[in-house]
């Protein structure tokens, strides 16, 4: 079942995130995709996340597909003008990449090439609008006809917590008006604040025009927690969450972080209008099965593979990552190709 079908069927969707490697190989993507394959509906492939150069998101998306998982190709406005963006959508669509997630992108200042020219020829609303125009009208911005037009399922992002608070739901409304069919949100640590934003979203009726996937992150270490709170633009970690993760011994931060993530998933799934969760766990993917298991989200799934854990597979998780062993995957990941897609 594709992400689109899962959402259309009213099922609770789960997506996760993969950062492509800094290098000309796809092995890390393949390994991560194999780990996540039976747990998530699709996986985002980031587009030079944090303005740091990585393998291209379209290439990473192809690697994800080759590993039997559905990709969500992220596309930022930072590095490409309207010519390149339209061209890349055609290329992605031609090669079978259906899900495209549009975002503004971090400023180059935050990455490994701060001296680079920030492009931002289009903004995220304009890019969504352009891509929808290409698909529905079968034409470029220039008016030239596309034969055949691209096929795509368009996603957007939104940060429910950043100022101006009164405009954040309206901003999602603009993205939906421009063409967004699903949205993935920034990390939700403050469930109450998120619920407040969702109430505004429901007032605008946006949850009926767009699938909303709430972002959930798993904190792995105290350093990671501090980084998240102080360094990542737009992320807000409330004091009680911060204190809770600081209160456990340092070697148990990851376990507590995963537990918190599972609780958050459970709370979010109870909010009206939330169609799924997006797990922001890049680099900590082996925590995903534990989080979903504890949250009880995987239980209702229909994939036959999920019910038959037959092989303990720490080897599938890659070499010695410092993930949460306690909550980690002690259930097996069947080594089987094809996933009914």
């Amino acid at each position, binding site marked *: 079942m594709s992400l689109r079908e899962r959402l259309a069927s009213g099922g609770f969707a789960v997506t996760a995130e993969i950062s492509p490697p800094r290098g000309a190989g796809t092995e890390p993507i393949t390994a991560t995709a194999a780990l996540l394959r039976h747990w998530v509906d699709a996986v985002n492939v980031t587009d030079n996340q944090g303005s740091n150069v990585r393998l291209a998101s379209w290439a990473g998306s192809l690697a994800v597909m080759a590993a039997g998982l559905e990709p969500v190709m992220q596309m930022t*406005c*930072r590095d490409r003008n*309207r010519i390149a963006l339209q061209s890349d959508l055609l290329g992605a669509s031609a090669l079978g990449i259906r899900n495209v997630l549009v*975002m*503004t*992108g*971090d*400023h180059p*200042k935050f990455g490994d090439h701060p001296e680079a020219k*920030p492009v*931002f*020829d*289009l*903004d*995220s*609303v*304009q890019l969504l*609008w*352009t891509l*929808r*125009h290409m698909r*529905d*009208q079968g*034409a470029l*911005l*220039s*008016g030239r006809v596309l034969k055949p037009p691209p096929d795509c399922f368009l996603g957007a*992002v*939104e*940060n429910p*917590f*950043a*100022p*101006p608070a*009164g*405009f954040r739901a*309206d*901003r999602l*409304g*603009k993205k939906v*008006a*421009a063409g967004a069919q699903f949205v993935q949100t*920034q990390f939700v640590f403050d469930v109450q604040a998120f619920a407040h934003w969702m109430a505004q979203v429901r007032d605008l009726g946006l949850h009926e025009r767009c699938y909303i996937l709430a972002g959930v992150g798993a904190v792995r270490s105290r350093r990671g927690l501090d980084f998240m709170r102080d360094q990542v*633009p*737009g992320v*807000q970690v409330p004091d009680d969450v911060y204190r809770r993760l600081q209160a456990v011994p340092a070697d148990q931060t990851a376990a507590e972080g995963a537990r918190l993530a599972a609780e958050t998933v459970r709370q979010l799934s109870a909010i009206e209008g939330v169609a799924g969760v997006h797990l922001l766990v890049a680099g900590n993917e082996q925590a995903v099965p534990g989080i979903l298991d504890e949250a009880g989200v995987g239980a209702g799934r229909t994939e036959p593979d999920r019910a038959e854990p037959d092989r303990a597979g720490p080897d599938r998780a890659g070499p010695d990552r410092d993930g949460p062993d306690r909550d980690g995957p002690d259930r097996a990941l069947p080594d089987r190709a094809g996933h009914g897609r």
Partner: protein
Amino acid sequence: MRCADGLCADGLLTARPPIPAHPRLGARLAYWLQRALRPRFGVRWLSARIEASGLARPLFTGGERVTKESLFGCRMCGQCALPVTGYVCPMGCPKELRNGPCGGVGADGSCEVYPGLRCVWVEAYERAASQGRVADLSLLHRPIDHRRWGESSWLNYWQGRDEGLWTAAVGHAASEGPRTSHQRVLGGS
């Protein structure tokens, strides 16, 4: 009218990087001026004369530049969004976002790129809200035409060339498409 090599026909360089600017004109006065200077017959006629004159046009454009630069930190994109952004210039956003703030705005309303400055969209929201114009912020802004940098947006506005810069968020958005009327005008000329 066309710009080439970053140097406009009007002789104005457009190399200033986008930096958030706090408007020095009160929101109330700005909206009053908007009503007073709306494109009626008189200004339309006058602006056509100015535009046709090889002497008056660069002088007028230079005057606009000086005025709007000091009041709004204007960078002369030539396609002014101020009337629907609470008179806070969105081209001062380091990402030049014309459809609202990015997700990186600090909890205190600061710009993520210039933490000492306020996000232009936080200011835009506050100023629009203070004048009952929040609905303006939901308009969908089309991509701008980069050939128009350095032009007088006042003349463009009075001559009716700015009408396609944005559209209502609901209804026509899909059918009209994201291409600006600017582009259509230029494409056809």
